[in-house]
């Protein structure tokens, strides 16, 4: 039998790795991939708590998260393509149109 706390610890570790990747990486696509890692860590936590409480609603939420992630990936990648077409680069340092 696997303690549920192991799953939670793994979820926390994956989320932290996702955050670290988001800040370490400097191109839009890899940063976007890091966001996907964070989403999956959250999914793992949702399923762990669903198992702990014995509630199926937690699994339905994960189903919706995956759907929203698919929609987000489609729009986000279209925006990345647009940025690349206009700036000829996907490095975050060179997308400085708004002078941030």
């Amino acid at each position, binding site marked *: 039998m696997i303690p549920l706390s192991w799953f939670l610890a793994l979820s926390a570790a994956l989320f932290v790795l996702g955050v670290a990747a988001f800040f370490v990486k400097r191109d839009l696509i890899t940063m976007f991939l890091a966001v*996907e890692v964070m989403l999956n860590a959250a999914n793992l936590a949702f399923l762990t708590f669903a198992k702990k409480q014995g509630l199926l609603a937690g699994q339905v939420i994960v189903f919706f998260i995956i759907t929203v992630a698919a929609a987000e990936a489609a729009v986000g990648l279209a925006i990345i393509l647009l940025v690349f077409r206009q700036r000829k680069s996907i490095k975050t340092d060179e997308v400085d149109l708004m002078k941030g």
Partner: protein
Amino acid sequence: MAAALFLILAATSVGAVLGMILSRNQAYSALWLVLAFAALGGLFGLLDAPFIAAVQIIIYAGAIMVLFIFVIMMIPLSTALPPERRKATLFLSIILAVVLAAEMAVSLWAMLRGRETAGPGGLGSTKALGRLLFGDFIYPFEITSLLIMAALVGAIVLAKKRDKA
């Protein structure tokens, strides 16, 4: 047996995410992530969610990552390689990650010391999930279809080449 399976899958997912962070090439990063998501699918199966596990592998490791790889292949990597990371940024990111990890450990402490185990329980049978999805959650489900429609139209409008005229 189950514990060994968990350890293998957990090590695979964490290792694959580390590989994604350390890889310099976006295409390899995406492939590492396919491995991580497949291992996570196995973990979802261990958590009594066989349907979500299948969705994870088919939609996430399959469809979404293929979308990423398509876009990576459309962008010439020679002009889009990540620049050198600055030492200061790397240092600050690592500090941030350590602080975040400590914060999570503190907030999850009570759960982390819990004794509940993930035994087989038949919680997430596809039949029960389907009844819930098309019963209590029918409105969110329908709104999801609207969301996907909007995302589809939005992606086409954004990505299509505009005529210069």
